[in-house]
């Protein structure tokens, strides 16, 4: 037991500090991906609702691809493929230049693409739950399309989409574990290194699982607070 505490301590012999850094990276990656995924997801949902066929098709291609590919493969495609592609484009303009997609950004883009294609479905379902009369009402009192969207639709949309989005956030948190494979020092990679070096695989992978559980629990608490807050808001109107 004493050995366990030494291994988990924050000192030079312990892995506590390394794992803490991993937690920080996992959380910041998930937090950085969230706004990106939400924004793209929202616009893709708008595209899917459009009366225009071409826009609908473009949006559907997006979700088909990113919901159909394994997340791990998406990550590889972005990390290596996009890098090579971008490099070639940049070289066309300026032969000497080089661009670099670092692992964090690659992870953000890949996870954001996956998150947004699922989020677009959540938004779409929420849009469908808002009756047409709300738009008509907005127009009737002289609001433009953008104003109707911002003042009337969005507040309701957020409330309706929140449960689905909360679920996606929890999935995102878990999906970040995949970035350990492209070399980002997240929870799983740090505990994995500790497991290999100390040969205490069960202990460290167990700790990794516990950390993800704690993050999920904390998220649930925060999300429930937000949900209650929006509900109270809804009732007041």
């Amino acid at each position, binding site marked *: 037991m004493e050995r366990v505490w030494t291994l988990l301590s924050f000192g030079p012999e312990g892995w506590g500090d390394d794992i803490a850094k991993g937690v920080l990276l996992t959380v910041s990656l998930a937090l950085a991906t969230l706004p990106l995924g939400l924004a793209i997801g929202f616009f893709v949902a708008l*595209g899917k609702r*459009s*009366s*225009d*066929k*071409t*826009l*609908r*098709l*473009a*949006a559907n*291609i997006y979700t*088909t*691809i990113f*919901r*159909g*590919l*394994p*997340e*791990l*493969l998406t990550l*590889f*495609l972005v990390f*290596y*493929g996009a890098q*090579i*592609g971008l490099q070639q484009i940049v070289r066309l303009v300026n032969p000497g230049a080089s661009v670099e997609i670092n692992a964090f950004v690659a992870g953000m883009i890949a996870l954001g693409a996956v998150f947004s294609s699922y989020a677009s479905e959540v938004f779409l379902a929420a849009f469908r739950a808002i009756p047409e009369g709300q738009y008509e009402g907005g*127009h*009737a009192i*002289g*609001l*433009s*399309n953008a*104003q109707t969207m911002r*003042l009337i639709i969005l507040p309701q949309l957020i409330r309706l989409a929140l449960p689905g989005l909360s679920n996606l956030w*929890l999935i995102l948190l*878990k*999906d*970040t*574990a*995949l970035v*350990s*494979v492209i070399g980002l020092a997240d929870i*799983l990679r740090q505990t*994995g290194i500790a*497991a290999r070096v100390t*040969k*205490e*695989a*069960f202990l460290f*992978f*167990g700790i*990794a*699982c516990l950390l*993800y*559980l704690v993050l*999920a*629990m904390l998220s649930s608490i925060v999300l429930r607070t937000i949900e209650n807050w929006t509900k109270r808001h809804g009732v007041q109107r």
Partner: protein
Amino acid sequence: MSAEAQASVERPPVVKKGWTRARTIGVVLLTIWAALGLAVLGFMINAWDPDIFTRYAPRYLSGLWITVQLVVVSVFLGALLSVPIALGRSSKNKLIGALAYAYVYFFRGTPLLAQTFLVYYGLGSFRPELQAVGLWTFFREAWYCAVFAFTLNTAAYQAEILRGAIESVGKGQWEAAAAMGLSRFQTARKIILPQALIVALRPYGNEIILMIKGSAIVAIITVYDLMGETRRAYARTFDFQTYIWAAIIYLGLVEILRNAVDWIERRITKHLKR
């Protein structure tokens, strides 16, 4: 609303016809997709090498077969395991309910990759203990470890799907059946399950798709599934088209399954359409 905003907008917007802004954006985006598609196609043609194809195509097929086996076996075993868990979740016994809840929470709250590592490397370090109870031959094989981890994982998700579907069938149905003199088992089999399965079909389809995609991680614990073969082919050829082939196969697999679920759903909900 501010006075300024009121002044600037007086009429409801006209419904535009013909070439709208949405169409412009749509055409631009489609052009980008087409350009990307052409770039990938051009790359594939450029990188085409009959040697590589004849050497690796059979391996990809065997990898695909492993992936399919892994998913089918895990989803099937997971379905069996999910029944007691779902019953436990709705049990009136507090302890059983809590245990089932903890199980579901653990497997849904942690990454599949971490669970797989925990089983493969974690349990692997208990070799003497496992040997003593005769389980080592099972846990020695990466393939069994993967099936074990995936089964436990998908059982948690399937239990929730099952529970949700059964709860979606109104309580009145149970009561009506009881009034007609049907036993609980008969009610479950003849009345509740058929309705619950309609509700559950789509989530089940999604769960299988998630398993297909999630199974790609077994490549990391030395199983040569489709992703494993892809990584091996890439390691030997350093040719990026190996990954694109994998992407095409995975996309095809998922799309076939998705359309199959759509088709089945249309068939079995025919009586619900008016």
